[in-house]
């Protein structure tokens, strides 16, 4: 069966005014299976939005090929456009003066839906995204979360089989973001495929079947989300937290860390924010470390694997705000 998305050696460059060339995508090859939620992770300027734009036919690649459900995004734009939905994050892309319902009627006409169909779908989608009560309010009165849900409704209007979501929950409060993610999971259960460009690790972990890390236009790795920890080696870890205000200095976390480092089954001890991570030689070593920690009254101690966020930070590196 044809993959939902197949990009091969995809390259996109931009010419700047001073005639220098910026490489936004650098020979990127990626396959997304049907009915998959695929996360595209990377820092600002990594090339996530460029890839989404190429796959949704907004942008032409400089070289390479990309196919959506078997259709070439350059040669068969008409077929691709009817199969994909593009959902952009942020405040732009909607008509503020129109009501939510009117926005959907407008875009429905552009998707060549007949008047009856678009009315029925608009009502159903507004209900589904929780905007039925505000259907006849102008979008200019909507919160960020409501706009985002309307963006998704617009993207679903023509019942696309593949959806490209670009930073769909940026700026949403946790409740709205959770509701949005639940909606995406429901839609996947209906057989749709998603490419989710984000730099929200929690979102990727909660939603994605597989994730790809990209940076400076290059694909760094692709794997099942659940397996991402293995990227850093099949390492055993134990995480613990401790009350650093303990009266006896030897019971404080820093002292515990020093003592832990001397144990034969411990290979490394590092601080990760408000917790500590102990890297061990093997599973038996982890069990001994857990027992050792529990004897010393730590607040929490658990067997752990590297998270997606750690994989991301170690793979992309310490670029901070640099793009």
């Amino acid at each position, binding site marked *: 069966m044809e993959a939902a998305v197949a990009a091969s050696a995809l390259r996109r460059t931009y010419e700047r005014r001073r005639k220098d060339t910026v490489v936004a995508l650098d020979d990127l090859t990626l396959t997304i299976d049907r009915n998959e939620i695929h996360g595209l992770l990377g820092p600002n300027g990594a090339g996530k939005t460029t890839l989404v734009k190429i796959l949704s036919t907004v942008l032409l690649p400089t070289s390479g090929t990309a196919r959506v459900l078997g259709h070439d995004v350059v040669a068969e734009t008409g077929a691709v456009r009817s199969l994909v939905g593009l959902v952009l994050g942020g405040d732009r892309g909607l*008509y503020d003066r129109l009501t939510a319902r009117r926005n959907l009627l407008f875009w429905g006409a552009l998707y060549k839906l007949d008047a009856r169909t678009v009315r029925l779908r608009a009502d159903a989608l507004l209900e589904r995204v929780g905007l039925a009560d505000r259907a006849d309010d102008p979008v200019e009165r909507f919160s960020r979360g409501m706009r985002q849900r309307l963006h998704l409704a617009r993207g679903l209007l023509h019942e696309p089989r593949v959806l490209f979501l670009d930073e769909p929950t940026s700026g949403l409060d946790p409740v709205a973001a959770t509701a949005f993610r639940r909606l995406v999971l429901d839609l996947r259960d209906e057989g749709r495929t998603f490419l989710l460009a984000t730099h929200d690790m929690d979102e990727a972990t909660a939603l994605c079947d597989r994730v790809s890390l990209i940076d400076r236009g290059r694909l760094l790795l692709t794997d099942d989300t659940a397996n991402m920890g293995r990227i850093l080696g099949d390492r055993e870890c134990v995480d613990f937290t401790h009350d650093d205000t303990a009266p006896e200095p030897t019971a404080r976390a820093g002292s515990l860390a020093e003592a832990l480092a001397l144990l034969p089954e411990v290979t490394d001890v590092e601080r990760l924010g408000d917790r500590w991570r102990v890297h061990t030689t093997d599973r038996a070593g982890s069990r001994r470390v857990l027992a050792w920690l529990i004897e010393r009254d730590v607040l929490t101690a658990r067997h752990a694997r590297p998270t997606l966020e750690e994989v991301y930070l170690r793979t992309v590196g310490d670029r901070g705000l640099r793009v």
Partner: protein
Amino acid sequence: MIHAIRVIGQATVLGFAEMGRVYTWRTWTFGWLLRLLCQVSFYALLGSYLGDPGLTRFVLVGNIVVLACMESTIVVISLAGERAQGTLPLLAVAPAGHLPVYLGRGVQWMTTGLVSSMVAWAVLPPLLGVPLPWPRAAYAIPVIVLVLVSSYGYGCALAGVALRTRGVEWLVLNFAYGIIMAFGGTNVPLSVWPAPLRAVVEYLPLVHGLQAVRGILDGAPAGHVLAQVGAEALVGAGWYLVAWLSMERLVSVGRRTGTLDHAG
């Protein structure tokens, strides 16, 4: 075709909704319309001041018909808004295509242009002492509508320019309208201008339509009037063609250079 008509209809609804951001019916009537009537009266009174009733009517008629052109070309601003709102890339990849949207996006300005020119047509001539020859003057109304339509095509073509460069829409609008106001035969007969300038002006909207209107009022032969009407329609069609090519190129270049969604 049916899809294109539906898109135009939806874009028209959008246009009127956006117009509500600029005007209420009161502010439009007592602000904008009154301002236009004063503008027309000002120019016509200059003719009166010079003591020439023929000149007064020439300037009055010219300035009434130019209102239709002026308001239609405001579509430049509406279309430039697509980039600022971030909707241009979404329109560009919509299965029905982006072109029908532009045909409906400024219909509200054609409507206000029709209302303001009709009010001026009915009210100002008797008020300023230069009554029009009714019922002949009624025959000029379809020609004014034609001017509205051809000027709209001109506005759409200019929007293709305005969408390419950030923040120039008002400059483009005023420059384009100013050229017509200055050289299109509104206040000064075309015969005043040197032949090369006259040749260029022939390709502007309003010019032939205005000559047809003047011909109707002066009782000119039907052949002369129809020829001018035909020329106005042809010029208008030419501007629609330019608009179509310009917008298509805007999108094709935008997809190639990655400039389609740059905010204005």
